[in-house]
């Protein structure tokens, strides 16, 4: 797993307290409104997202930039590739 620090993002999605599969559905919807090259930050407290989101990025062709651990959640960064 690649860790990042102070990663900037164009959009943020707070999915803390929301269960599977929202961590895959909502980023997909959000990405539709973003431009190529923009970065989405996903906040989640769901451990499964650490595997699912990188795998989802690979499948959809987006770049998984990395992960940062916050006080009460994970922050995952995705760059829209197309």
């Amino acid at each position: 797993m690649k860790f990042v620090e102070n990663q900037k993002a164009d959009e943020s999605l707070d999915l803390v307290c929301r269960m599977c599969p929202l961590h895959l559905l909502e980023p997909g919807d959000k990405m539709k409104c973003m431009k190529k090259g923009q970065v989405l930050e996903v906040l989640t407290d769901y451990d499964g997202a650490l595997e699912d989101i990188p795998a989802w990025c690979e499948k959809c062709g987006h770049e998984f930039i990395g992960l940062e651990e916050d006080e009460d959640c994970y922050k995952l960064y995705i760059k829209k590739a197309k």
Partner: protein
Amino acid sequence: MKRVYLDHASATPVRKEVMEAMLPYFEERFGNPSTVYDLGSEAKDVIEEQRSKVAKLIGAEPAEIIFTSSGAEANNLAIKGAAFAKKTKGNHIIISAIEHHSVLNSARFLERLLDFEVTFLQVDEHGLVDPERLASTIRPETVLVSIMHANNEIGTIEPISELSAVCREKGINFHTDAVATAGNIPVDVNALGVDMLSLSGAAFGAPKGVGALYFRKKLRLMPLIHGGIQESGRRAGTENVPAIVGLGKASELASKELTVKMDHVRKLRDHLLKGIHDGIEQVVPTGHPQKRLPGHASFCIEAIEGEALLLMLEQDGIYANTGSACASKALKTSPVLVAIKIAPDVAQGSIVFTLERSNTMEEMDYVLERLPAAVETLRSFSPLWGKKTAA
């Protein structure tokens, strides 16, 4: 026999327009909104239309509405869901001493099972919560405050915008139970400054079994019902489409009719109260004399037992309430009347009339004709009345 129904805080009849709007969703449009074919996607679209109507009623955005099965579920979701989500930030909750049991018992649940501490904020003799008292009760570990918009037993409307401002300054989530107000008086989540607000369809012409929780964008809320992705993953379970359509239609009607309805029920209520105070001795009003729901009349009639009076009125076709069905079934004095310091013997004579748009002045006159006689009959059996009149 004539029927005069004056217990609309307990339930309102489903309006004809609401029933007509709901009917297609029981049979020909029965699809599950989560399915991908047209029957499902049509149902999903209809739910989103209703979300907009409910949001409009309270000045919210559609995405800020979660449909629930009742006002009680909305209150549970607000209290438990917001407390769970903030568990790492603090463990102190403040609620007023006159909240509905769905708020009181949700807070007690958190206290008993999850190490939360709950402060039950006292009210004044009219049932009002003092913003300064609230401010002095807040601690560094306070994460949630819940004060009802209006009390269904005594009719008092709380100063929610002042109370929420106290919390906003300190970054504390504020919830209000608006079951008694939404659809009955103007409710605007931004003017009130609340983070969460509960409402119930049964209070304004929708069927029982449907309610909603408003939650401000970006608020974290732990779901209570886990499962599918309905309600954006915040409340699992296949949606009750007909009931949601009913809530949407009732919200649409309420948005249009609110001012006329308020004027109408206020006139009736004032006429009824004047007649009662003129015609019956020793009646103690409860709740705030001005800051109260327009269609709400509440008082205690000394030296009678409220439930006995309800049964006598029922024989004349008049339906009212004592205000606290749970307390009276448990043979307890109403906690709300205790909180506003009504003497226990006086509190036994609590009577609440809650009016709606369909009530008429003729009905008020009918109640004024029958009520004094019923009270006189009950007092004639009462040893308490004998003592009072002898004194």
